[in-house]
């Protein structure tokens, strides 16, 4: 497979994981900007990387998600559970697609359709970018003129022509596109002119230099220095698709018809224009478009075409020509054009949209007030401010006026004091003083208006700018020192095996030293070999530790999938559950972590489904309505312990006994003698599933025995404690690392066998007198409890021991919480070995876990006690 694609799949997979995690955190804390930013960056990076491959459905979906997150980031959208569900669904889809890409290098056939549906659903949540929409801007939201300031690069004739064409042919949304190709783009094989040529239905186009041209002898023919600006009538998705490889160089903004009206020219007026303004206003009122066109054309003959007013008059002509036939909303635009002429001020398309603007014009507001910079906006802050302003607006008898002004002034002052905005505080105080002085709410009301304007979250900055910022962020981040290295796992395994061999090879040096001394009689040589051995031994140990560290991963990797699982299941079951994670930084071998995922899922499902009660039941039992599941990891000795506990209803031992009897797993006598704790352990018996109804979540007959088997396969063990009504706790004990196994060597019938250290509970010498024979079975009493005693010689079919002795060496092993004594000939030392499983002809032999090579070259058979007993 293409190595780039491989890398993309791994990286995108990680990013999806982190996005998932952040989404869940966000659900608890929807106002955390850092989380939203992190989420946005993850999705944005996926999108950027996906652009390298031909996977349009994928890009489209991620893009929709990204747009949604931009809206969330700008506080235009709150990530409520419905949106989160959808985003999670999108993440799942992306994960599926990544898997498909990994297998077949292409997306599934239905990807396009699914991607589109999902992207549309996502987009449906995105609020329009601008609040007020004009009557004519029904096709598309009209962005503020600041967003498309670059549109002015297009000449007026072209815009006039585009305007007429857009009115004449109704349909298709208008888009403004600004495309500044990268100066080095020719080296990437790009041809910007050709790209622009593929944009459908271009109504207006401008191609210009990005800055000045250099003198002819300095021009570099391979540096692109062009800017393309165009207005076209096309579906946004289509244009975005065209420019999909250069998203950071292009701005695509939906345009309302009236946004094309960009008068320009020298500011100058004169009496002629004033006369015309009066006439035009009259004609406008009478709705006499023909007369208006006539008058305007007459005026154009008289004035300098380079003036701003001339430009306005040209637009009046254009709009008047079409406003009768076209959309009625244009009448407002026409009126505003005429008004701006009469009032000697620039044309402001926003005024025509909202009709008459009450209160202060927006420009005056921002001008009036520049005293302070708004901090991050708290919605509550804004609401209080707005409420106080409304109070000022209420009609009020004059005696109460002073009191009201003072009270509003105080409230607002407190508000600003609470956020530490001293400048604003002073300003409010001054305004309320002057309001009291002139006995009018006016000064205070104006100040409040201005402050509300400053604090209101600004209508989304151009999405593209946000993108650009994010890209810049991404770039700086990526340029930091790389701290991780991705290595193929098989390489690590190889290294691991080699080090294992080295350890074994090293162990032969002491034997060599002994030979040097005994066979060759050179004591000095032997000592030197031992010295060298010490050095090699230390290095080998260090290497072994280092490679272990490489394989160690924090359990957080395994834990991170659970918040999602718990959330989904809890929603499905209609329960309220909190998942508490602890000790995520505990490290364990990668294999262990990977092998544990499924058993843990099963345990958590059990806790959710059977353990945690529905809220009403919990309240009735005097517990908090929300249940808690705790997932904790810690290190105990050479084990990693993972504990899953819940505060649910626990396991009822009586119920367990009844169930076991019903399923004929135990007989009546046995059931009667079972302690509560033993009854609870019945849950581990194969085929034991107590759920009354098989649910979607658990209870499919795959019981706890499967979990236990899986854990034991990883070399771990599992314990379960439950207190009826109070909850259940499961503890998983796992070896820190499985690469090196510590075994105890035991000698039996002249042979050496290894027994894994983790199954050995203790080693004792039992006098013959303490061995009791009950029929054929031997037992002994060890610290007050009876344990069965077996003989390894018999288990392995070796001849009985006929040596003279008065006691037996007994190795007590722990198997599934049961103690068994095993009689052996002699204990030897414990050693670290690299366990090699049996394969080939001897692969089917049961009773042996594998083999290991000892330092002197002998082969040690390692017993699997579970199978032997």
């Amino acid at each position, binding site marked *: 497979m293409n190595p780039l694609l491989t890398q993309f799949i791994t990286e995108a997979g990680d990013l999806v994981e982190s996005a998932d995690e952040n989404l869940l955190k966000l659900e608890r804390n929807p106002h955390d900007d850092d989380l939203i930013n992190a989420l946005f960056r993850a999705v944005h990076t996926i999108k950027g990387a996906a652009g390298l491959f031909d996977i349009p459905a994928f890009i489209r979906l991620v893009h929709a998600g990204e747009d949604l997150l931009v809206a969330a980031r700008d506080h235009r959208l709150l990530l409520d559970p419905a949106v989160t569900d959808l985003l999670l669904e999108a993440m799942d889809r992306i994960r599926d697609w990544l898997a498909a890409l990994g297998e077949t290098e292409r997306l599934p056939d239905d990807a396009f359709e699914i991607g589109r549906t999902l992207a549309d659903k996502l987009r449906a949540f995105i609020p329009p970018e601008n609040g007020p929409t004009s009557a004519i801007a029904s096709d598309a939201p009209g962005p503020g003129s600041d967003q498309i300031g670059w549109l002015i690069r297009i*000449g007026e*004739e072209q815009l006039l*022509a585009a305007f007429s064409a857009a009115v004449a042919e109704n349909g298709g949304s208008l888009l403004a596109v600004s495309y500044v*190709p990268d100066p080095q783009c*020719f080296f990437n094989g*790009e*041809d*910007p*002119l*050709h790209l*622009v*040529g593929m944009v459908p239905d*271009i109504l207006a*186009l*401008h*191609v*210009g*230099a990005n800055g000045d*041209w*250099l003198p*002819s*002898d300095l*021009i570099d*023919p*391979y540096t*692109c*220095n*062009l800017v393309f600006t165009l207005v076209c009538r096309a579906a946004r998705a289509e244009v975005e698709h065209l420019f999909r490889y250069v998203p950071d160089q292009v701005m695509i903004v939906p345009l309302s018809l009236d946004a094309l009206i960009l008068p320009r020219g020298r500011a100058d007026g004169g009496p002629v224009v004033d006369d015309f303004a009066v006439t035009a206003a009259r004609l406008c009122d009478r709705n006499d478009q023909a007369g208006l066109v006539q008058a305007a054309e007459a005026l154009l003959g008289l004035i300098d075409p380079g003036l701003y007013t001339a430009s306005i008059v040209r637009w009046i002509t254009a709009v008047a020509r079409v406003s009768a036939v076209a959309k009625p909303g244009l009448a407002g635009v026409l009126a505003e054009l005429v008004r701006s002429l009469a009032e000697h001020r620039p044309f402001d398309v926003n005024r025509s949209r909202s009709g008459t603007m009450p209160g202060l014009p927006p420009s005056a507001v921002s001008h009036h007030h520049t005293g302070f910079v708004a901090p991050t906006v708290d919605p509550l802050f804004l609401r209080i401010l707005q409420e106080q302003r409304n109070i000022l607006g209420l009609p009020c008898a004059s005696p109460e006026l002073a009191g009201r002004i003072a009270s509003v002034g105080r409230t607002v002052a407190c508000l600003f004091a609470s956020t530490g905005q001293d400048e604003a505080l002073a300003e409010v105080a001054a305004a309320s003083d002057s309001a009291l002085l002139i006995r009018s709410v006016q000064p205070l009301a104006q100040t409040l208006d201005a402050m509300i304007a400053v604090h209101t979250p600004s209508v989304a900055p151009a999405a593209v700018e946000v993108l650009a910022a994010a890209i810049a962020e991404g770039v700086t981040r990526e340029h930091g020192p790389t701290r991780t290295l991705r290595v193929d796992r098989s390489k690590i395994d190889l290294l691991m095996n080699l080090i294992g061999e080295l350890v074994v090879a090293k162990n032969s040096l002491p034997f060599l030293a002994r030979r040097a001394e005994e066979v060759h009689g050179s004591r000095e040589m032997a000592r030197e070999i031992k010295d060298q051995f010490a050095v090699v031994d230390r290095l080998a140990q260090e290497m072994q530790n280092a490679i272990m560290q490489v394989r160690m991963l924090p359990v957080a990797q395994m834990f991170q999938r659970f918040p999602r699982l718990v959330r989904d299941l809890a929603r499905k079951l209609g329960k309220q559950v909190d998942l508490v994670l602890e000790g995520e930084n505990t490290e364990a071998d990668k294999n262990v972590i990977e092998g544990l995922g499924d058993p843990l899922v099963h345990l958590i499902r059990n806790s959710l489904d059977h353990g945690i009660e529905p809220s009403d039941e919990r309240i009735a039992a005097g517990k908090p309505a929300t249940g808690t599941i705790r997932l904790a990891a810690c290190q105990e000795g050479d084990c990693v312990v993972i504990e899953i506990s819940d505060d649910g209803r626990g396991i009822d031992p009586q119920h367990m006994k009844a169930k076991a009897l019903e399923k004929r797993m135990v007989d009546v006598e046995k059931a009667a003698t079972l302690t509560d704790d033993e009854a609870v352990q019945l849950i581990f018996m194969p085929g034991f599933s107590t759920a009354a109804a098989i649910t979607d979540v658990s209870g499919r007959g795959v019981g706890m025995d499967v979990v236990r088997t899986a854990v034991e396969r990883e070399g771990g063990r599992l314990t379960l404690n439950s207190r009826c009504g109070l909850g259940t706790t499961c503890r998983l004990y796992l070896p820190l690392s499985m690469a090196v196994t510590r075994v105890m060597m035991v000698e039996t019938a002249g042979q050496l066998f290894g027994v894994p250290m983790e199954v050995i509970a203790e080693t004792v010498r039992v006098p013959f007198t303490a061995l009791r024979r009950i029929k054929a079975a031997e037992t002994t009493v060890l610290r007050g409890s009876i344990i069965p005693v077996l003989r390894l010689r018999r288990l392995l079919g070796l001849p009985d021991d006929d040596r003279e002795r008065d006691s037996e060496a007994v190795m007590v092993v722990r198997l599934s919480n049961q103690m068994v004594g095993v009689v052996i000939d002699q204990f030897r030392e414990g050693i670290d070995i690299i366990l090699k499983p049996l394969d080939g002809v001897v692969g089917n032999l049961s009773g042996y876990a594998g083999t290991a090579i000892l330092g002197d070259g002998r082969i040690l058979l390692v017993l699997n006690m579970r199978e032997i007993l």
Partner: protein
Amino acid sequence: MPILYGGEIAQFLDVCAVDEALDFIEWLRGQSRPKIDLESCTHLHTALFQLIVAMQPEINSLPGNPFLFRCLSEAARIYPPAQKCLVSESVSRGGDS
């Protein structure tokens, strides 16, 4: 050769790719009054287009491709030193097309 250089005039033929840019600029620099003929040009790479816009050679005839035609007339209009009459003509033709 997609660009034929004949004395003062360069003739652009069919697809003119980015590789021509270096030769073209050398040629432009060497001419006092360069003229170009784009009538038979079907594809003009941005690099060449940019040189035409920046160095303003006299354009004898515009290409038939409507988009190239539009771009060239548009760009020429913005950098119009001595080509006013060509421009006004092309704009009116552009309107018709």
